[in-house]
């Protein structure tokens, strides 16, 4: 049977050429980069080379790149690091209602410690207004954190404008670029970004490795204390294989960013069109066109519950995601879908399909076909549905 993985925003497989480069560092070349002998020093070089690749892609300098255990750690470091470092300057942080939980739960934790957090709303497409950011900034503001592109609905934020504003106001600016980096060229200098988070497994690199970009000159308390790795700013024995994988993966992703953009955009728009054509009462969540990640489709199919949808799709070996309450341990529907004004019912019937390198036109056709059948069948057994 055909297998269709349409959950690339959740995670991606490690690309074979990435894995190939990682392999020696598990076994023969296993040295600790902090060690003085050749086996260690060679790995120090290897980590340096990976750092240069990341810097190149972001238009940063290599000494602004720090390796972490993932997007979550980087987000935690950004928020808590700034909050603790600048606690005598101010206790106000601005973020949005649609951030990833790594940002939101860090912010809530800080709120519990007495910090003052502003959660900006978004418009119905999920876009933050630069003017809202401007109005929210006070004397006490130490950080603005706005994600580059949303993981659920794919909405892209006006990052360069927010960056410029923050720079003018002398406020630090962090962006979670975990979902964006493989799809949108990022230039930390041109975009006035001070801190930025990445996660390798979202762009065909290994799970458990990430990046924190810290602009030169930005003072930031360490988050993980210990040995002197990462120029004394982030401790732990370097995950050499993982870092090598991250380096190759980001270089690879940057190399195909524009060809993949056109290819995926066409597939995405085809998928959206077909769903709209084949499934009654389907609604697109988030922006259409250029304001949306090229690989993201998010629709509400009211009358069908999201978890049910996923299980049904799984029967056809289709992997997808939902913002339905039933699929989350917390039984709250997605905070992102709520923030763009969806009703509970709409959030409940939401379906996210995120495309990737492996996605083909046949996959799109297959998914639409199966989805249409599933929706019809489940709507027919719903008491809310009258046709």
């Amino acid at each position, binding site marked *: 049977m055909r297998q269709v993985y349409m959950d690339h925003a959740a995670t991606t497989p490690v690309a074979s050429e990435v894995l190939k480069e990682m392999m020696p560092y598990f076994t023969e070349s296993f040295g*600790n980069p*902090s*060690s*003085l002998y*050749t086996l260690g*020093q060679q790995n120090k*070089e290897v980590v340096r080379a990976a750092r240069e690749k990341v810097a190149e892609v972001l238009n940063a300098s290599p000494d602004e790149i720090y390796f972490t255990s993932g997007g979550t750690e980087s987000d935690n470091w950004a928020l808590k690091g700034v909050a603790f470092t600048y606690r005598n300057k101010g206790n106000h942080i601005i973020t949005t209602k649609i951030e990833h939980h790594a940002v939101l739960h860090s912010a809530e934790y800080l709120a519990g410690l007495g910090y003052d957090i502003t959660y900006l709303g978004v418009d119905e497409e999920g876009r933050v207004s630069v003017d809202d950011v401007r109005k929210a900034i006070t004397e006490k503001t130490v950080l603005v954190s706005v994600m580059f592109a949303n993981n659920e609905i794919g909405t892209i934020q006006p990052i360069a404008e927010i960056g410029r504003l923050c720079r003018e106001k002398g406020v630090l600016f962090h962006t979670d670029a975990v979902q964006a980096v493989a799809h949108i060229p990022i230039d930390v200098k041109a975009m006035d970004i001070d801190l930025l988070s990445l996660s390798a497994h979202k762009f065909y690199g290994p799970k458990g490795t990430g990046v924190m970009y810290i602009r030169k000159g930005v003072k930031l308390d360490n988050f993980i204390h210990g*040995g*002197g*790795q990462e*120029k*004394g700013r982030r401790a732990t*024995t370097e995950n050499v294989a993982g870092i090598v994988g991250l380096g190759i993966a980001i270089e690879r992703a940057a190399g195909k960013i524009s060809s993949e953009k056109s290819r995926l955009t066409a597939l995405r728009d085809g998928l959206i069109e077909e769903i709209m054509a084949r499934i009654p009462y389907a609604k697109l969540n988030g922006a259409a066109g250029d304001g949306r990640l090229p690989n993201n489709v998010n629709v509400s199919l009211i009358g069908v519950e999201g978890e049910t949808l996923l299980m049904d799709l799984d029967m056809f070996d289709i992997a997808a995601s939902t913002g339905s309450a039933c699929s989350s341990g917390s039984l709250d529907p997605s905070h992102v879908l709520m923030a763009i004004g969806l009703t509970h019912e709409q959030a409940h019937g939401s379906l996210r399909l995120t495309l990737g390198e492996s996605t083909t036109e046949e996959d799109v056709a297959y998914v639409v076909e199966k989805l249409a059948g599933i929706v019809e069948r489940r709507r027919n057994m719903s008491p809310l549905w009258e046709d």
Partner: protein
Amino acid sequence: MLYSEIVMDHFQNPRNVGEIKDADGVGEAGNPRCGDIMKIYIKVENDHIVDIKFKTFGCASAIASSSMATELVMGKTIEEAWNITNSAVAKALDGLPPIKMHCSVLAEEAIHGAINDYRRRQGLEPWEDKSHDELVDEHSHHFHHQG
């Protein structure tokens, strides 16, 4: 790699190791930061350094710096020898890692010590040594790591 090929060469095959029993000047420099120590012996004829030997207890870059410094100084006049700086030693070694620059300071200081010892023995005023603290302090953060 931590060190250049020239450093490794001088570390592995240090030139002018040893002592001069009837030296005309002996200089010793110790690094208060890491506890290393370097001793330099010179033989002087007609205001020229005609022989030089060293003994060093220290890291690879301290040993290589001593060795390179003795090569640079050999055959020079006292004044030329005095003017050979630690950065010249480091440069001749094809560079040292920033955290190891202070090891080359040791070599400059030991040579200055030997020259001033020679001058004192000749009844001359010792020359004034400048301080290198700026160089030694350029790496203030913690690097120490042992698995």
